[in-house]
């Protein structure tokens, strides 16, 4: 009985193993993904890098870009041209390589209906694209900025083109003196890092602050022409650009071929502007063009005086309120009023771009009236404080007198009781 049972179990075991043996033989001809199987062995970091790749996340494997047949275990079959294999593109082929999908509206709509499809066309208008067309194989193409493998979505913090990484990505080439030799200067990234824009972006984490591509464009990257600088800066600094265009400087800058905003603020190393930039002595930029005696010089002096006077008065009012507050006075409404004064000061600093002393004076007068009103409130608070202290002294005197009177009364009563 035992022997028969043993034989039956042995046959059942072989039958169970048989299918796996057949599949094992077939695995020599077919593969789940031969790209991964072979290339993981060749480059250990590749599989890791591809984790989180936007294309992989969307379901596009190696074959999506490189073609071929990953189901073939045989290398020649898997990478046969007849099976659509294109291999790694040369730099000159990259824009078209990526553009195969990214310029195809119907294809891109499957993933994102709002996705742009003009990147390749725009690239060809860029400084990079033009040089590539001229046969320069060393200029930046899509993969130079986005990477080849492990490409992250542009809004992914690990993406090379995420706002906080753009300057580093551009600087890889543009800050490399060897690479840029004979082409362009290489100090832009260093200058940008010292700018108010970089400070806002990297220190304050303000992702809306501009980086390289916000002024130069991304796919169509090229330096803005002198005439279009104000347009570029004006995309964010709208009011300043509008005032500048109406100002007398607009025409004269155009005649001089001067780069509008650049003349005073510079380009990459744009520092946080100060009130001293307007005036008749350095660091005022007005003196670069205007000399004593000309109307521009007089106007600069006048604007400087107005702004400085307002800033000083607001500072004094602020100190007075702080003093009252430290003494325990409730001055929050006066403080709120003071913010309007500071708004007027900010408004004045913007109005400077109209280069009209009259315009600046009107706004500083509005701010001055608020500052004076706040100052008065601060003084009233301190007067009230004095009143309170005198009132306290008087009250304590009365209370002290009453205390002594009660004490004497107790003494009198207790003497009588004895």
């Amino acid at each position, binding site marked *: 009985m035992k022997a028969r049972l043993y034989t039956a179990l042995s046959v059942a075991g072989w039958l169970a193993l048989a299918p796996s043996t057949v599949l094992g033989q077939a695995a020599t001809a077919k593969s789940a993904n031969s790209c991964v199987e072979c290339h993981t062995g060749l480059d250990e970091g590749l599989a890791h890098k591809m984790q989180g790749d936007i294309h992989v996340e969307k379901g596009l494997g190696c074959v999506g870009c490189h073609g071929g047949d990953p189901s073939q275990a045989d290398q020649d079959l898997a990478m046969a041209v007849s099976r659509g294999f294109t291999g790694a593109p040369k730099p000159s082929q990259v824009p078209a390589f990526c553009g195969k999908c990214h310029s195809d509206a119907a294809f891109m709509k499957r993933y994102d209906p709002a996705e742009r499809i003009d990147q390749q066309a725009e690239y060809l208008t860029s400084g990079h694209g033009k040089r590539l067309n001229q046969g320069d194989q060393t200029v930046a193409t899509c993969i130079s900025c986005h990477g080849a493998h492990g490409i992250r979505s542009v809004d992914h913090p690990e993406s090379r083109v995420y706002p906080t990484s753009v300057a580093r990505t551009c600087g890889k080439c543009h800050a490399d003196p060897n690479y840029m030799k004979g082409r362009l200067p290489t100090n832009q990234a260093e200058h940008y890092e010292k700018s108010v824009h970089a400070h806002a972006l990297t220190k304050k984490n303000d992702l809306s602050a501009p980086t390289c591509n916000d002024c130069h464009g991304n796919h169509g990257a090229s330096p803005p022409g002198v005439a279009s600088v104000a347009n570029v800066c004006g995309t964010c600094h709208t009011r300043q650009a509008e005032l500048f265009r109406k100002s007398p400087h607009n025409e004269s800058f155009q005649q001089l071929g001067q780069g509008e905003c650049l003349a005073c603020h510079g380009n990459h190393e744009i520092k946080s502007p100060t009130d001293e930039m307007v005036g008749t002595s350095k660091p005022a930029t007005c003196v670069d063009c205007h000399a004593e005696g000309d109307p521009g010089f007089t106007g600069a002096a006048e604007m400087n005086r107005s702004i400085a006077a307002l800033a000083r008065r607001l500072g004094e009012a602020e100190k007075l309120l702080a003093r009252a507050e430290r003494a325990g*006075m*409730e001055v929050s409404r006066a403080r709120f009023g003071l913010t309007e004064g500071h708004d007027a000061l900010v408004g004045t600093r913007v109005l400077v771009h109209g280069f009209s002393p009259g315009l600046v004076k009107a706004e500083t007068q509005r701010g001055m009236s608020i500052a004076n009103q706040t100052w008065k409130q601060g003084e009233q608070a301190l007067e009230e404080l004095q009143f309170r202290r005198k009132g*306290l002294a008087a009250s304590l005197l009365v*209370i002290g007198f009453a205390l002594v009177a*009660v004490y004497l009364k107790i003494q009198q009563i207790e003497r009588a009781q004895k």
Partner: protein
Amino acid sequence: MKTTTDFKERASGRPTEAQSGAAEWLRNRLGTSPLEEIAAEKTVPRHRHSLWYYFGGMTLFLFSIQVVTGILLLLYYRPSAEEAFESVQFIMTDVSFGWLVRSLHSWSANLMIAVLFVHMFSVFFLKAYRRPRELTWVTGVLLLFISLGFGFSGYLLPWNKLAFFATRVGTEIPRVFPFFGDFMMRFLRGGDEVTGATLTRFFGFHVAILPALTTLILGVHLWLVQCHGMSRPPGPGYENGKTMKFWPNFLLRDIMGWLFALGLLAALAAIFPWELGEKADPFASAPAGIRPEWFFLFSFETLKLLPAHLWFMEGETLGVLAFAVGAAFWLLVPFLDKRAARGLPSRAFTAIGLLVLIYIIVMTAIGFLA
């Protein structure tokens, strides 16, 4: 028009109102003579710890200031999330002496709780809770709980940032109670979150429910104090038989203390007016350094220091339950201290009281320094 009493007095030959002035006039009409007789007969024990007797009257005086200033604040305060902060700001800046009334209200509230603690511990250590004054103690402890309720509800009323977040933390605490914890939290908040509904509700507690309870319990407390008189502590050194007449000797000394408290309050209100802070914003993130008022600090610190899990339950739950048991124990002290009830020294309860006092002082200090 002459009253019947006047005619009787004329007939009896006693001085008429024309002869003794306003006091006699009032006495004739209000019938205050029995009270005067009680006051004339009432005495206060005189010994080396008589000083502590003045703290009960001091608490009552500060409570009276609370009532008067509270009524004045009611004339301008508006209990809604939209208007509360602005109305307090208006009181502080635009109402004549509004800053003084509000600062007096806030300072005297804090002083009252401090004096109340002194009064309570002095009663505890002098064993004044022993028979027949058990109910005087119980009503006193209930008044302490009500005063803490006044403090908790009043803290939120200016609707400023710190109070808002502290109330959010404070109203979360009852949730740890099994079965009815969630209900208690929603009852306090008037919903799931601290909102304008909580403010309106706290205002109701602060100006209607708690004052009504206080009137009732304080009435019983004062009546019991009159019934039983001041307790002479047990033990040697106190049985000297010396007394002081309540009127005028003790009351005049009481008045001296009240005048001193009034001066102190005036100085605090004028030199350190009570801050208003920033308006509460339920959508803003909680500011750093949220903490309750100082009299809740010892319990708050305890809950903070407890580990997340202790034995078989959450640390916070255990802490809150321990405080609830502690409060019940404190309320029932006269019934638990059998030795004091027999007039014998009760060192165990003195030690417990000392431990509680040291614990409160140390944890409050840690809370301030943290």
